[in-house]
């Protein structure tokens, strides 16, 4: 912070950003119930406020005043701290996300971001990795089998998908050449190879974009990847033993991570708050970036809701297969590809437009490989399950034996 900035500016930035995300989360919960309700041919909450929009508020008040039951077997203080970790990690993540452009107020010019760290992207990754502790410790501290299962599932899931996500983000900052979020947003501000086409990284870095989007669903623990709290199998998963305010915190953290993840993907791949301002006067022009950012984020939030309404939960081993055998290799290859042509285009003086086209071409190839690869994975895992009663299933040679009997001589 420059010494000349008055104290109210950072305070205002912080308040605005946090209020924005909190409000967004509240609206998300309402929207989810309405949209899923519509998908299931029912109405959803419609009593409180216009269209039931205040339902979340009332629910929050209810949770706040509900009796907070602490089972006697739990392991305090970890039981108490666990829900807080998730909420805090969620709130801290949004600190580096710019929700709008430059704003001038009372003669002070500032950006709608809490802190534009020069390692902002890493900050996002670091905090999302800390988010694991919330579910994980809650599951353990509950001292109960289902929550423990949920906690272990969630930690394995999040670690796996963090790698893929981190690699996807790596190709973004290799392409942009900076770890600073504002630099990445600025680099996407221009137009793409065709006039009018946006310069979003989702286009040249399409495989990374796909990996990130899939990864973020898993990272947020949302359907179809909500194995950690699968109610059909684990009662409520890691939060089975929680009630009242602390359960509310888990809910807040989960829904907030939906919003935060959407905001991150918008920032890194879809240009963040950039968008046309339609020649509005300066006094109100600052509204447009906020509007664009909100619109893009809302689109992703809607995507999350549609996933929840439309897709059944995956099996756990399929989830792990997808993460380790598809997403991580694709993301890894993509980082290499990106790094290679950043170097090549710098050395060869290839223009930005050509580079984008090259990237799109390579992206198509990688995606094609991804699709064929996934089909093979699916086939292999189905075979695994069919062979469940096979007494020989622990035998590592099992696959090799029937398929290729000429491979090796089997010793007597």
């Amino acid at each position, binding site marked *: 912070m420059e010494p000349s900035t008055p104290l109210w500016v950072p305070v205002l930035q912080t308040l605005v950003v946090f209020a924005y995300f909190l409000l967004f989360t509240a609206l998300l919960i309402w929207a989810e119930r309405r949209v899923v309700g519509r998908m299931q041919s029912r109405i959803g909450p419609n009593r409180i406020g216009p269209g039931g929009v205040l339902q979340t508020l009332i629910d929050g008040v209810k949770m706040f005043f509900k009796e907070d039951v602490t089972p006697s077997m739990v392991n305090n203080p970890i039981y108490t701290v666990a829900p807080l970790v998730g909420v805090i990690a969620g709130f801290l993540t949004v600190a580096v996300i710019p929700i709008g452009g430059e704003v001038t107020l009372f003669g002070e010019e500032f950006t709608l971001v809490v802190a534009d760290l020069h*390692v902002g992207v890493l900050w996002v990754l670091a905090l999302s990795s800390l988010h694991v502790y919330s579910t994980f410790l809650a599951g353990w501290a509950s001292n109960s089998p289902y929550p423990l299962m949920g906690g272990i599932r969630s*930690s394995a899931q999040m670690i796996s998908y963090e790698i893929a996500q981190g690699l996807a983000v790596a190709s973004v900052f290799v392409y942009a050449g900076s770890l600073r979020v504002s630099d990445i947003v600025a680099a996407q501000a221009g137009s793409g190879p065709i006039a009018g086409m946006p310069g979003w990284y989702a286009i040249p870095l399409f495989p990374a974009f796909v990996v990130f989007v899939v990864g973020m669903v898993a990272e947020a623990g949302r359907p179809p990847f909500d194995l950690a709290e699968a109610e059909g199998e684990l009662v409520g998963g890691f939060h089975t033993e929680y009630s009242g305010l602390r359960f509310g915190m888990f809910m807040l953290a989960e829904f907030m991570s939906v919003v935060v993840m959407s905001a991150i993907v918008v920032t890194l791949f879809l240009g963040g708050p950039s968008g046309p301002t339609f020649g509005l006067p300066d006094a109100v022009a600052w509204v447009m970036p906020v509007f664009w950012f909100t619109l893009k984020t809302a689109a992703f939030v809607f995507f999350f809701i549609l996933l929840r309404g439309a897709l059944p939960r995956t099996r756990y081993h399929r989830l792990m297969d997808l993460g380790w055998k598809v997403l991580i290799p694709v993301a890894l290859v993509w980082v290499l590809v990106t790094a290679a042509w950043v170097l090549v285009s710098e050395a060869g003086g290839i223009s930005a437009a050509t580079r984008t086209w090259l990237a799109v071409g390579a992206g198509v190839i990688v995606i094609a490989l991804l699709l064929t690869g996934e089909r093979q994975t699916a086939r292999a895992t189905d075979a695994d399950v069919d062979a469940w009663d096979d007494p020989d299933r622990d035998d590592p040679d099992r696959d090799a034996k029937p398929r290729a009997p000429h491979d090796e001589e089997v010793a007597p």
Partner: protein
Amino acid sequence: MTLLAQVAPTAGGTAEVVVFWVFAVIALGSAIAVISLRNVVHGAVMLVLNFLSIGGLFLTLESAFLSVIQVLVYGGAIMVLFLFVIMLLGVDRDDLLQADLRTRVLAIAGGALLAGAVLFAFVGPYTSEASVCGPDAPAPGPGEVACAGLAEAYDEDDGAGARFLGRSLFTTYTYPFELAALLLTVATIGAVILARRRDLEPEDEDLADLDAAAADDLDGDDLDGASGAAAERHVAGDGPGTTERGG
């Protein structure tokens, strides 16, 4: 506060000093908690806290990159795996941590000795007037003590250290960097070997030249059978380091 003032001359402000003290106290407190808490999971959580506060201390040294990496790698990745293993194996019982009095006294004495020596060696010279630190520090003269390495890091403009680190890795330290890749490969192969449930089928037949009886129990499993000859062979009477195998 001399040390902080020396290594971070641009800090100056009181806020930075406050942050330093807060993180320093958390770091020390959590480190003590790690070794004194009887519950393994509590200890591990304290270790997470310790790593986070070390990350905070890196921030007061204006090394945001190192700080975030510390949180990401140690706080996020390594400790999650740590906890994962603790929970999966169910080793969170405190009876594993019983240490007898002698061990305890020895451990405390050794720790105190090391800590004292390090404190004496660091805090003495590096906080005295004779210490030469900071980005603009001249080369140390006779009788003066240089702050190792810090000056090099401060040559970088933005202080983030990321660029400096990357450049070092790919120029000065190429060879160890590639060796580290080899290390990871070895670790991966080792993990695969240890995790695989079963050996491959024996593929060759030169076992034939062993007498048939011998071939049957070549496995080490049967070595523990207490036959007379085995018992005779077991008169192992050496000094420390001997472990009697349970038969």
